[in-house]
């Protein structure tokens, strides 16, 4: 056995441990929760930030990339929260469940539709709300879960009743307000009853120039025959860090379509861990990475097909400008029992700069013999034939290039058959191109 000398703590690691010490007395929870927090921070102290030597973090070496760790954000005054309306906040008309600096403001939430129940951890910290009952396996791979276990301040337990169909989407936001960059961690536990149907939007919002650091871990359990459309939108400021995770379990005939849109932030990693556990279940992932500046953006996905007759498709589209770097790690595991699995994965990158880059790492682990699985990754530039065609109709070169870049990602946005969402996401595309193009 090789003995590794433990490397010295980085400034970010030191700051992380210090932040915990500063705040631990003020974090909610029963003695058991506090014990879990302590275990998590001990784990982080012992292993440090994950590095490239850790396979799961190979393309996102957190030890070198995470240069600092901000202090834990305080609960803002109510009036500060009320005034902190971000113009980029509005995606579509929705039932709002607003958090500010990682704290839920029950009285600022919209009235809940019939069938939807929401409890905040902070209102039931004595154990009445079991948002904390789930503890991640503390291990170095799951740094995001471990960080969350140590620091989570608040979170929502959301339950949708059987057969409930929500007309309006539900929007869960965590808006960072205040002058100094700060860190916040939230955790949500969402369960969707049998045959229920709903759309959720989850996003972090912050002033454009801010260097906030955010962490969200969401567990989403989708019941038999239920259908969920879930959006994750990252639009952090130029120096923002977001390390988040969504863990999904799909029951028989359940369906999840997950749209991830990354259009901001300096360092972003979104982990997607999906357990396709019920026969007939279907998981769809669509990812749009709009990468510019010096940013580093990572979508890491693990999908387990455990039972027969399940399907999944993942399509990731990336536009890379400047010196931006992107990562997609997609792992599909098909268990021995999971016959007739149909799983497809594609990662397509439009590379518009010589200095940018994108790393795609598809992995298929298949233990069943009667399955259809495939993956493909492409990196392209703008097609000269397309460009010539558009220009031959009088569209000037820059405008034609803009149309083609937009088209590259719009293709997967237009799959949504909801006009309001298509329009909202295309507006986001336009905004991003206007700021970065």
């Amino acid at each position, binding site marked *: 056995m090789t003995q590794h000398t433990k490397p010295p703590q980085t400034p970010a690691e030191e700051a992380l441990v210090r932040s915990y010490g500063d705040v631990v007395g003020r974090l909610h929870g029963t003695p058991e929760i506090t014990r879990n927090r302590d275990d998590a921070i001990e784990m982080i102290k012992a292993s440090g930030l994950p590095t490239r030597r850790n396979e799961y973090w190979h393309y996102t070496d957190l030890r070198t990339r995470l240069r600092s760790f901000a202090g834990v954000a305080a609960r803002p005054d109510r009036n500060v929260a009320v005034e902190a309306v971000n113009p980029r906040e509005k995606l579509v008309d929705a039932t709002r469940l607003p958090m500010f600096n990682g704290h839920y403001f029950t009285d600022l939430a919209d009235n809940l539709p019939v069938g939807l129940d929401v409890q905040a951890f902070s209102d039931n910290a004595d154990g009445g709300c079991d948002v904390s009952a789930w503890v991640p396996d503390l291990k170095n791979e799951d740094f995001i879960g471990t960080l969350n276990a140590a620091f989570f301040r608040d979170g929502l337990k959301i339950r949708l009743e059987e057969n409930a169909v929500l007309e309006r989407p539900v929007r869960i936001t965590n808006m960072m307000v205040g002058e100094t960059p700060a860190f916040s961690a939230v955790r949500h536990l969402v369960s969707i009853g049998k045959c229920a149907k709903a759309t959720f939007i989850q996003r972090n919002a912050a002033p454009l120039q801010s260097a906030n650091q955010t962490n969200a871990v969401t567990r989403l359990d989708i019941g038999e025959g239920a259908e969920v459309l879930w959006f994750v939108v990252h639009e952090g400021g130029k120096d923002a860090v977001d390390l988040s995770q969504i863990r999904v379990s799909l029951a028989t005939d359940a369906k999840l379509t997950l749209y991830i849109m990354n259009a901001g932030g300096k360092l972003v990693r979104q982990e997607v861990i999906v357990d396709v556990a019920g026969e007939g279940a279907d998981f769809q992932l669509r990812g749009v990475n709009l990468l510019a500046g010096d940013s580093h953006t990572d979508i890491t996905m693990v999908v387990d097909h455990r039972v027969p007759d399940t399907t999944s498709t993942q399509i990731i589209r990336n536009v890379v400008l400047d010196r931006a770097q992107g990562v997609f790690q997609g792992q599909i595991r098909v268990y021995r029992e999971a016959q007739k699995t149909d799983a497809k994965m594609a990662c397509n990158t439009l590379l518009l700069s010589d200095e940018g880059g994108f790393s795609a790492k598809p992995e298929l682990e298949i233990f069943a013999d009667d399955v259809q699985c495939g993956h493909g990754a492409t990196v392209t530039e703008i097609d*000269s*034939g*397309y460009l*010539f*065609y*558009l*220009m*031959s*109709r*009088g*569209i*000037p*070169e820059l*405008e*034609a290039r803009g*149309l*083609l870049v*937009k*088209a*590259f*990602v*719009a*293709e997967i946005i*237009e799959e949504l058959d909801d006009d309001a969402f298509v329009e909202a996401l295309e507006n986001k595309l336009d905004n991003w191109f206007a700021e970065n193009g």
Partner: protein
Amino acid sequence: MLEIKNLHAKIAEDGTEIIRGLDLTVKAGEVAAIMGPNGSGKSTLSYILAGRDDYEITEGDILYDGKSILGMDPAERAAAGLFLAFQYPVEIPGVATLEFLKTALNAQRRARGQDELKIPEILRRVKEAASSLEMDMAMLKRPLNVGFSGGEKKRAEILQMKLLEPKMCVLDETDSGLDIDALKVVSEGVNALRSPDRAFLVITHYQRLLEHIVPDSVHVLYRGRVIKTGGKELALHLEEHGYADVIDEAA
């Protein structure tokens, strides 16, 4: 309107010379047909006129309205009134057809110093043009040319030509891939645009198209040069006898 003088051009990538001393003049109001065997440079000529940068002009000039267009990019040429109906219109996923039509129309208007058109007016014009070409508006809601049949693509090219109202129209084998009914509709679309201040260069393999779009002049292109020029009866002669005797005569 269009004057091609001693044009020489090669493929930029490998230096193969395709156009070798081509001379051709098309006057305002004229419909000129270009015929010629495979590989004679017909499609290359159409791309060069539209400004595709895969080709390098080594000698000669192209004058449009008396001015050289060699220094203009494809968008500038289009805004000046030049239009190429592609032999193989490209499918562009993700670009909605209507959005594309609006962008092209308004980009050209902007370049000419005209006011941009509002969406209702654009829709009205598109509807009118589509109905004259017997095209379904539902098709135009799809991404540009995606999933269109060969015939639908050709109709869509003529639809764009109607909307953009160019002065010099180059039609590259617009008849290929069309059945007889579609050929009729497309030809009628072209004929409706014939006017004393608009010229056409119709590139085709077959006399068939020229029965519908009757040309004022017919030019035979062979190995990158015009080797014979005549009236519409020249097309009939070629249909009957092939290119052999014309080529022999020129050699």
